């Protein structure tokens, strides 16, 4: 099941040229761009692992693209996204966020039922991938997820 999170997720995956053009747009708006990754695709999983610090004062997308490539290389089986943060007073929030890598095979989510008081049933969803411990999901076999070190 294809995970649809962030902008452009109903479109075919963006090419590197298209990602680069989107980042150029973000930098023109003077947003701070950052790269994050995770192997837990739950829609309420807000806090992904940071790949280094958010990047300030950039003028060109080449620097961000180098980080995106480095992150993909270190985490070939993870979801990778690019966030653009607007620090303008009144906004102070992420203005654009989109996936730049997804695992080759996305098994999707199961519906879990929990019996509560009486005959009430509570529903939730769980990703099949989280049955594996972190770092071994989506075919990755290293013991733990690679942390971003800003490199």
């Amino acid at each position, binding site marked *: 099941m294809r995970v649809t999170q962030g902008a452009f997720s109903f479109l075919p995956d963006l090419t590197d040229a298209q990602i680069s053009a989107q980042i150029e747009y973000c930098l023109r708006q003077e947003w701070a761009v950052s790269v994050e990754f995770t192997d837990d695709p739950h829609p309420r999983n807000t806090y992904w692992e940071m790949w280094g610090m958010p*990047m300030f*004062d*950039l*003028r*060109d997308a080449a*620097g961000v693209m*180098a980080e995106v490539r480095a992150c993909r290389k270190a985490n070939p089986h993870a979801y990778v996204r690019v966030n653009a943060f607007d620090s303008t007073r009144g906004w102070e929030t992420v203005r654009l966020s989109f996936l730049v890598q997804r695992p080759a095979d996305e098994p999707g989510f199961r519906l879990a039922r929990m019996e509560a008081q009486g005959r009430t049933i509570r529903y939730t969803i769980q990703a099949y991938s989280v049955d594996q411990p972190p770092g071994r999901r989506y075919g990755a076999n290293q013991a733990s997820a690679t942390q971003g070190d800003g490199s």
Partner: protein
Amino acid sequence: MSVSAAATAFDSAAEVVDLKALLADTDLNAPITELERDLVGLAPVKLRIREIAAFLLVARAREQVGLSSGPPTLHMAFTGNPGTGKTTVALRMASILHRLGYVRKGHLVSVTRDDLVGQFIGHTAPKTKDVLKRAMGGVLFIDEAYYLHRPENEKDYGQEAIEILLQVMENQREDLVVILAGYRGRMESFFASNPGFRSRIAHHIDFPDYDAGELLAIAEVLAAQSEYRLSDAAREAMVDYIARRRKQPGFANARSIRNALDRARLRQAMRLCAGNGVASREALQTIEAEDIRVSRVFTTAIN
């Protein structure tokens, strides 16, 4: 038959490139003319910049007719004494390369050792990479680059910064242009101990010292830029000043002249305030000989 003849005609038509039109297209004459006009002297530097500009133009023409040449190496080393205009030319270079389309944004990021080399283990790589990312799409100007290499301390983190720089200079040639600058002798020994740098830098440009006439011209240009002018007597005093200052230690070419002019402006202000309290527009913009003559340069004996 006729189809192939038409195709041949089309091909040969495409094999002529109008360099003049290309030049007009790139709007390149403007920055180069500005450079020639605004900067006094520096003949060898101007010649090299013209050469580089012509080379880049031809490289683009070659591209148009389908001759592959790969992205040219544009990393440069500026060597010369203090105050010979290295930083000024680097700034102009960024705009020239931008107009030629060899850097995408055309900004200049000027750094020294402190901006690249960290304080402790693991600090240098993120710092250097951060600077490189900021410079992407523009020109990275490393002033006094030889401080990166500290031969007397083998644990120095400068070497780490050098390795990262070299890697990016080689692999991301189309993303940024690196300009190293510094004094001639020390740059020579820096390149001697880092052969990787020398081979990755295509253009070594030497900035000559200014002669007395050029220094006077610089003084007048600088004065005119801030809407001052030298009276005739002041000009003579300036000629004397330059002759004496050049023989004294710590002479920094155009920078010394700028400082002398700044101090002359202070003295002019004092003179006007101490006067009868009325100053004409003429008096406000004129620097007199006495503003220059009281300089310490005239009282210190020349050894």
